[in-house]
């Protein structure tokens, strides 16, 4: 077991990469794609097995997108579905012995959060044009300062929330295993179960907040 907080790095083209995070991300991607492949391998009108699970997920997230973004946001559903699946698998991967969550690295969470915020702003300007920029100066021009702070806070809160939850969960698993003797597995098991729950909840929170931010940019304004 590696030491907490110390990351193995590799140098490539003069850039530093966290090797473990990258590997775990690729494993997560492989799992997500495998699930998608299994679910859609033999699609039937009357669903069974894996198709059922992924279908429920897609239908549910599609509804969320629809409620938040309206029909104009339908093209973003694949992004949201992928985000949720990726985060759930990432969060749960760290609970498997010898594995780590890609989301226990701030690089992952901040990267995703920045990507989301970037998509929000690009879509906002693309779909609403000047109107989108104007809304930062509402209700009066000086509010631009507060709005700017909010916009900066968005990716930071989004990324640190997820990172903190998953990192803390994994640290506590290691600590519990060291503190409690092996014949007394109940605390670890309880914490594992709780971590599974937290992993799902955090993935959902990240996805929902991303949706809410996207709604700001995509949904037709009512004023």
């Amino acid at each position, binding site marked *: 077991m590696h030491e907490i907080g110390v990351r193995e790095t590799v140098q490539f083209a003069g850039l530093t990469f966290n090797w473990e995070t990258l590997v775990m991300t690729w494993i997560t991607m492989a799992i*997500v*794609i495998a699930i998608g492949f299994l679910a859609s391998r033999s699609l039937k009108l009357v669903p069974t097995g894996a198709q059922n699970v*992924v279908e429920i997920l897609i239908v549910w997230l599609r509804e969320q997108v629809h409620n938040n973004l309206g029909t104009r946001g339908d093209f973003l559903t694949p992004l949201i579905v992928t985000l949720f699946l990726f985060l759930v698998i990432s969060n749960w991967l760290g609970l498997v012995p010898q594995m780590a969550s890609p989301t226990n690295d701030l690089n992952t969470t901040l990267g995703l959060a920045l990507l989301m915020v970037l998509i929000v702003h690009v879509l906002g300007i693309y779909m609403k044009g000047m109107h989108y920029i104007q809304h930062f100066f509402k209700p009066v021009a000086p509010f631009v300062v507060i709005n700017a702070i909010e916009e900066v806070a968005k990716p930071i809160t989004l990324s640190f929330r997820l990172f903190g939850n998953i990192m803390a969960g994994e640290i506590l698993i290691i600590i519990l295993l060291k503190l409690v003797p092996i014949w007394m597995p109940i605390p670890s098991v309880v914490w594992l179960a709780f971590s599974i729950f937290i992993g799902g909840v955090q993935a959902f929170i990240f996805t929902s907040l991303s949706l809410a931010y996207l709604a700001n940019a995509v949904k037709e304004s009512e004023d």
Partner: protein
Amino acid sequence: MIDINATLVAQMLNFLILVVVLRLVAYKPIVKMLKEREERIAGSIEKADADMAEAEAVLKDYKAQLASARVKAQDIMDKAEKRAQDEHSAKIQETHSEIKQMKEAAQQQIQRERSQAVEQLKSQMVVLSMAAAQKIVSKNMDAAENEALIGEFIDQLDKDKIGDLPC
């Protein structure tokens, strides 16, 4: 623990790749299938509605046909009964009149035969009486007086006896 490096950009790219791949592998086919299913269910419901309406129409038709058939049957039965009744009474009437006719004919014949018999008897009586009177009186009476006497006698006989003749 919190060291931001090039991994951040790599993760962004990783995620974007995942979005593209998952969209191709799973999202598109599943959504297509969902749409197909929706259409199929809508079609099934529509068809079920149409079938039900048709079934109801057929049932209504059958009921109407059954009712009219029943009315027709009743009508036919009524007619048949009426005809039978009419025939029956007509026959009775006919029989009655036939009996009456036969009775009348019989009475007429009786009357005719009776008067014939009376006539016969009368003429025979005259002859017999003449013979009897000739034998008894034998003389002194002219023929005219005799005949008057005998005629009177026969007339009396007629009144008293012939009317009671059994016939």
